[in-house]
C-alpha cells in the first residue's frame, strides 16, 4: 500500500500506469461500517469534485457517503462490486475498488496523506 494516498475520510487513491486514478475506501472504513449490503456508484462520465460525495456505501450498520479525494471524470466503475458488496469488506484495496477517474487537477494528490500519516491519523481519532 506504499504507493497509495489517503484522505482523513478513509478513501484511498492509486495512480495507475496510464495516469488515471483508482479510488476506494480503506480497511479501517470497512471495519467500522461492518458487512456491506448496497453500493451506489456514479455513472461513467460523471464529474467528481474533491471533498464532495460521489457515492454511498450502505452496511448493516449505517449508510455512509464516500468522498472524492481528488477531482476528475469517472472513466470506469466496478460493476461486480455493485452485485457483491462483500468485496469491500474482504478486499478493500483490491477487488473492492470503486471507481477509476481521469483526474482534472493531478496536483490535488499532493494534499493527500501518505500511508504512515493516515495510519497515524487513525490513532489520533
Amino acid at each position: 500500500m506504499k504507493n497509495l494516498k489517503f484522505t482523513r475520510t478513509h478513501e484511498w487513491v492509486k495512480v495507475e500506469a496510464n495516469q488515471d486514478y483508482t479510488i476506494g475506501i480503506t480497511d479501517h472504513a470497512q471495519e467500522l461500517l461492518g458487512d456491506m449490503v448496497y453500493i451506489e456508484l456514479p455513472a461513467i462520465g460523471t464529474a467528481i469534485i474533491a471533498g464532495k460525495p460521489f457515492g454511498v456505501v450502505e452496511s448493516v450498520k449505517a449508510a455512509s457517503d464516500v468522498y472524492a479525494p481528488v477531482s476528475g471524470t469517472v472513466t470506469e466503475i466496478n460493476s461486480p462490486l455493485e452485485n457483491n458488496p462483500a468485496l469491500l469488506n474482504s478486499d478493500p484495496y483490491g477487488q473492492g475498488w470503486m471507481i477509476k477517474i481521469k483526474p482534472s487537477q493531478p496536483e490535488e494528490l499532493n494534499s493527500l496523506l501518505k500511508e504512515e500519516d493516515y495510519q497515524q491519523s487513525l490513532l489520533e481519532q
Partner: protein
Amino acid sequence: MANKTPLYQLHLDAHAKMTDFYGWDMPLHYGSQMAEHVAVRNDVGIFDVSHMTVLDILGAGGRQFLRKLLTNDIDKLPHPGSALYSCMCNEHGGILDDLIVYQRAPDSYRLILNSSTKDKDIAWIQEKSQGFAVGLLTRPELAIIAIQGPQVFSKLQTILTPAQYDAISTLRRFECVDIEACFFARTGYTGEDGLEISLPADQARELWQKLINAGFQPCGLAARDSLRLEAGLMLYGQDMDETTTPLESGLEWTIQWEPLDRDFIGMGALLAQKEHLKHKMVGLVLEEKGIMRPHQRVVLNHLPDGIITSGGYAPSLEQSIAFARVPVEATETAEVEIRGRLHRARIQKPRFLPKK
C-alpha cells in the same frame, strides 16, 4: 464500570468486537454479523445472553400472582415443564417488559426478563407480590447460553452428557426441564429451533468452550437483532415501551382476555383501548435498494405518518425489512423516508420468514 457476563474473557479470546448494551460489555459480533446470521438459519449458532435477568418466583401463591401480573394466562400451561411468552403491563396497559415465564413445578416459576428493565421490573414485581404467598429470588450466579439453528439437536448429541441429551430430546417447543444443575428450555429469539440454557457460571464457561472447540459459531448482538427482526419478534425499548400497549405493538396475541374476572393488571385499560384503537404494528418490505432504520418516517396515503421502530437488512430475503407503528387504517403500501428521499415499501404482517 460495565457489567461483564461469566463468558466475557472467552469472547475476548475469540476476538469478539465488544459493545456496550445497557451497561453490559457484550459481543457485537465475532467478525461478520451476516455470517453469524446465516449460520443460525442454516446450521447452528451460540449466544451468550447472560445479561438477561433470571427471577424465580417460589411459593404456593405463584399461580395466583402471575395470573394477575401477566397479560397471558399461565393457566394455559399444560403441565410443569412448560412455558409461555407474555407482556407485563402497568395499570394503563403500557408495557413494562416482555418475558417468557417457565413453570418448573406447581410452586416454582422462572421469569427471564430483559436486562435493560431489570431494576424497574424487580421493584414492580416486588410491589405487586404483596399479599400473595410468594418469595422472589434473583439468580445472578446463573449464565444463559442460547443454542439456535436447524442442526441444534443433531449437533448437541456429542456435547451434552447422555442424561442431559436424553432429557432435552423429548422436549417439545416451549417445554423445559431441569437436569444436572442446568435448566434447559426449547425457546429462543431467532425464529429457529433451539435451546436456552441457564446454568452456573463455571459450567457455562466449560460448556461454551466445548461448543467453540466443536466448531459451533459464536454469534453476537448484531446477528441476534437481525435474526429476531426476520422472525417478527419485538425488542423492548425499541419496538415498545411503557408508552405503548400490546395492542399497538403487534402483541395482542399475548393477551388472554377470557376469563374476564382474571382482571390482570392493565386489563381494563386495554379493553377500553380496543374499542378505539388508533395504531397498529405492521411489517414493511422495501421494494427498492436501501435499508430502513429506526425512527424513519413512514408516509401513507391520506393518513398521518407512521414511524419505523426497528429496521435493517434481512439476509434471508436479500431485502430491507422493518417494523412500523402506523395508523390502524394503513393498508397495502407505504413510502419510507430514507436520507431525504421516499422509497416504496410493501405492508405485510410483521413476520418475514418463510413457513418451515
